[in-house]
């Protein structure tokens, strides 16, 4: 039996009578909404990546999504998920109406209400909570998992309502990488994959987790590709060199690459002299600790000769790049692992130049001004207590949840607003997230699909999909910067609304009652009221919560864009979805593939006053390593009869967001656990056998996929499956959820969840 990783074609050959008439998603599309035909430029939202496309609408129905060749970032391509966006729009499981819970949390019993009834319900609960908390607005936590509209969402709940407790996916995704780059070279930068002739990738799987332009550039550029991974992914399969290694030992490899560069003086001396700070400390540290390739071989199992060869090749390449990856929260050493990668790039001089980490010249968009009220009673955030740096914007989820659940937070969190952030599935230890949500007096979800998290909400506000709304213009990229606009393709289906319209209604409902609570507790506001009267104090103090939404979004875009860039840019964004200085002048390189910025106009190198910081004093002060350092606790060691669990995803899925998609599920309906074929044979495990995987937290059942593509002591399965919400009819009951069993540990530099540190046992059923 071959159930996965195989073409599914060949079981056809039977008679007609045996074929089952497939339920067609296209049947739904035959019902026209409005008799219109159009081609509309839009931006995809099937993942966080944002590629550009043109939507073809026939008789009011979106019939086809095509790539937009004007967009430098997405290089005229759409991935399988992007193509299946139509089936997200017309998913019959979508949230259609505002709902209020009538049963227990999680049991799925809701009543359909009007938008006003939903707002009224929220108002009553929120007024009571904020009154009882004496105007401490931070008792409301709010979170967001979608890239678009995030800042506006923060403006509403943070700036306008006054809560400091915003959380996003950064601490369960990429904050260690962003932070490591920022603190080492002063900027998060951008990696110029297309300009590099030699790339080392640790773990990142650019051919199955597609990111534009990186994945596309790798396919179109002649360069040497070296991949390190404990699993032979498609990226590893396609690499020029694949170096299998133990999970969590990439840092040892990096340290030995630095060792070779220093010992053999391969580094860019001119660059180091000009830009490095504390180079002597780095040199002394690496040499003193004897991070030789021989030492690294003992940690990683990569042969020392191979390490030396790769290091020499890397430093003799013209434009080498150590690719920093994206989702980067693997183990306790993650922050220093990413720093080591940045330092390797810097030692080669691959900073602020072609093929390296570039600073570039992003287009800065003007911000709309809003009037922000001051709330004296609003307390500060607590989720960064005990974290050395952390993101002031998106916080640290696991620390936040820990403090709420253990009641060690300095004040109570009593309400949560959750927008398109499936927190029941996206962070380790699901039962703890459930416990946190059960402690809330009010949970409101803004979402398009009835995810596991949405099913824990008291009030569900249906947000429309990305094809049904215009969003504010966005600036993309640094090397070839552009503006892009998500235009509305069709009107919102059912009673769903855009986020702006949802917040507008909510703002109108909440503004006055919440103002009155402030007036009751806030002495400064009381003074203002005395001085200028109630009305002026309200207006001038910025308490009108829906202030930003007085104009609709297309008007806001028109004003903002024409004021800063002029009519032509606005017109380009409306008709082509994109603007950059050379739009329309793209030269065809071959076969529908284009050159965007002429090479001499790209921002490879920009004037910038910066230093490469080898040594971070703040870390030392807090009792952590100031430089990338190996500790014996990082050694890969597994208790007898245990396996290390690592996670990732399939090319056809974006976390939990796409597993209900009726077309994408044809490619991967459920996940399977990869287990080494030799080990599987010893344990009498065959393909398709049901296995119980147990960690210290819990157990899951998942089917086996024995393969030679994974290390003997490691197992892997894709994130995004094992949905508990029965409302997601295609995804429910399919496969297993990794976060049921991943232990909730986090590192203390950025407060990021360490997802690859859980050991599990396996039992065949």
């Amino acid at each position: 039996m071959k159930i996965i990783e195989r073409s599914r074609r060949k079981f056809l050959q039977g008679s007609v009578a045996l074929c089952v008439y497939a339920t067609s998603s296209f049947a739904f599309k035959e019902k026209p909404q409005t008799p219109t035909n159009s081609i509309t430029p839009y931006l995809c939202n099937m993942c966080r990546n944002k590629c550009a496309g043109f939507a073809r609408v026939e008789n009011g129905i979106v019939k086809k999504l095509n790539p937009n060749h004007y967009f430098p970032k997405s290089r005229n391509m759409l991935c399988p998920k992007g193509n299946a966006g139509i089936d997200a729009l017309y998913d019959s499981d979508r949230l259609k109406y505002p709902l209020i819970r009538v049963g227990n949390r999680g049991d799925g019993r809701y009543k359909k209400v009007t938008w006003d009834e939903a707002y009224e319900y929220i108002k009553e609960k929120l007024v009571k909570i904020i009154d009882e908390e004496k105007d401490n607005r931070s008792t409301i936590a709010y979170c967001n998992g979608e890239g678009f509209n995030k800042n506006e969402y923060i403006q509403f709940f943070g700036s306008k309502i006054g809560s400091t407790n915003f959380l996003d996916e950064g601490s369960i995704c990429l904050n260690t990488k962003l932070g490591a780059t920022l603190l080492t070279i002063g900027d998060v930068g951008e990696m110029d994959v297309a300009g590099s002739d030699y790339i080392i990738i640790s773990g990142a799987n650019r051919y199955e987790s597609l990111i534009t332009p990186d994945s596309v550039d790798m396919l179109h550029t002649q360069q040497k590709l070296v991949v390190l991974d404990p699993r032979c992914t498609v990226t590893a399969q396609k690499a020029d060199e694949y170096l299998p290694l133990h999970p969590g030992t990439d840092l040892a490899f990096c340290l030995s690459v630095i060792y070779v560069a220093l010992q053999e003086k391969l580094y860019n001396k001119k660059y180091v002299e000009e830009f490095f700070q504390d180079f002597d400390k780095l040199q002394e540290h690496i040499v003193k600790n004897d991070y030789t390739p021989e030492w690294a071989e003992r940690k990683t199992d990569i042969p020392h000769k191979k390490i030396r060869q790769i290091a020499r090749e890397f430093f003799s390449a013209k434009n080498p790049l150590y690719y920093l990856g994206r989702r980067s929260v693997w183990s306790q050493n993650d922050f220093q692992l990413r720093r080591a990668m940045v330092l390797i790039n810097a030692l080669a001089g691959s900073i602020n130049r072609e093929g390296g980490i570039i600073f570039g010249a992003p287009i800065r968009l003007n911000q709309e001004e809003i009037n922000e009220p001051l709330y004296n009673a609003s307390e500060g955030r607590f989720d960064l207590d005990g974290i050395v740096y952390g993101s002031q914007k998106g916080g640290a989820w696991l620390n936040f949840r820990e403090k709420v659940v253990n009641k060690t937070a300095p004040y109570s969190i009593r309400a949560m607003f959750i927008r398109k952030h499936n927190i029941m599935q996206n962070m380790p230890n699901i039962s703890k997230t459930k416990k946190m949500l059960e402690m809330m007096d009010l949970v409101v979800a803004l979402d398009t699909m009835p995810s596991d998290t949405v099913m824990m909400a008291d009030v569900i506000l249906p947000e429309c999909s990305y094809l049904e709304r215009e969003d504010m213009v966005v600036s993309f990229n640094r090397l070839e910067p552009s503006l892009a606009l998500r235009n509305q393709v069709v009107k919102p289906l059912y009673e769903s609304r855009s986020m702006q319209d949802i917040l507008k209604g909510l703002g109108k409902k909440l503004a006055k009652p919440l103002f009155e609570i402030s007036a009751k507790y806030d002495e400064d506001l009381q003074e203002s009221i005395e001085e200028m009267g109630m009305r002026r104090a309200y207006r001038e103090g910025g308490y009108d919560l829906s202030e930003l939404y007085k104009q609709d979004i297309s008007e806001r875009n028109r004003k903002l864009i024409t004021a800063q860039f002029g009519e032509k840019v606005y017109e380009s964004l409306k008709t082509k979805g994109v603007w950059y200085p050379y739009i329309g002048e793209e030269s065809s390189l071959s076969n529908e593939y284009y050159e965007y910025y002429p090479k001499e106009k790209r921002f490879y190198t920009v004037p910038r006053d910066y230093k490469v910081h080898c040594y971070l004093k703040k870390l030392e002060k807090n009792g952590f390593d100031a430089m990338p350092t190996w500790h014996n606790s990082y050694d890969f060691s597994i208790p007898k009869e245990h396996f290390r669990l690592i996670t990732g995803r399939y090319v056809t899925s974006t976390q939990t967001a796409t597993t209900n998609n009726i077309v994408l599920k044809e490619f991967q309906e459920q996940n399977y656990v990869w287990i080494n074929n030799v080990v599987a044979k010893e344990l009498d495990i065959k393909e398709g056998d049901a296995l119980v995987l147990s960690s210290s937290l819990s157990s899951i059942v998942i089917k086996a996929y024995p393969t030679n593509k994974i290390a003997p002591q490691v197992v892997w399965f894709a994130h995004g499956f094992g949905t508990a919400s029965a409302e997601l009819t295609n995804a429910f009951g399919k496969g297993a959820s990794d976060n049921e069993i991943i232990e909730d540990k986090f590192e203390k530099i950025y407060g990021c969840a360490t997802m690859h540190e859980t050991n599990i046992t396996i039992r065949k059923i």
Partner: protein
Amino acid sequence: MANYAMAFDYKLCINCHACEVACKEENGIDLGAKNHRLWIEEEGEISGDFWNLKRDTLTYTQMQCQECQDAPCLKACPNGAIYVDTNGIVRLHKELCDLTLACMKACPYEARYIDERDQITDKCIFCADTRLAAGETTTACQITCPAKLRYFGDLDDKESEISRVLQERKHFTLKSELGTKPKLFYLE
């Protein structure tokens, strides 16, 4: 009037399935994994033990109707339902098809499947009744591909990109020993 063909820079494929989804959406192919006009065939497998894998033994091959110039399906159909259109594409008179399945049996490339909705045997026709009919000059699979590995165009136009790439690069056809003369070319 054209002589349409396709060439694949097949080694670039990362098996991302974008072409398969784009084809289904563009051409309104019924749901179900068995219903599709094109697919990626995984040939061979990665061999060896984990620490010493041999990776070049697995290839991804783009599979679909090979647009044979001497098409076995055309000859096999007892109803004369299969014909070559003015663009050199092997097509079907839908009303003449009564599912004898002779074409499916005759096809050495397993290119056809049963379209349950229309009760016909269906296969890739280079988006002839969707994109080409609307005046487009690209196919859905070609335009969406991240690697841009699918060249599509007119063989009779010597200036076309496909003509140029076939002149410049070595290529082969599948099962050439059968003499079906496919117009789908795989670039070395």
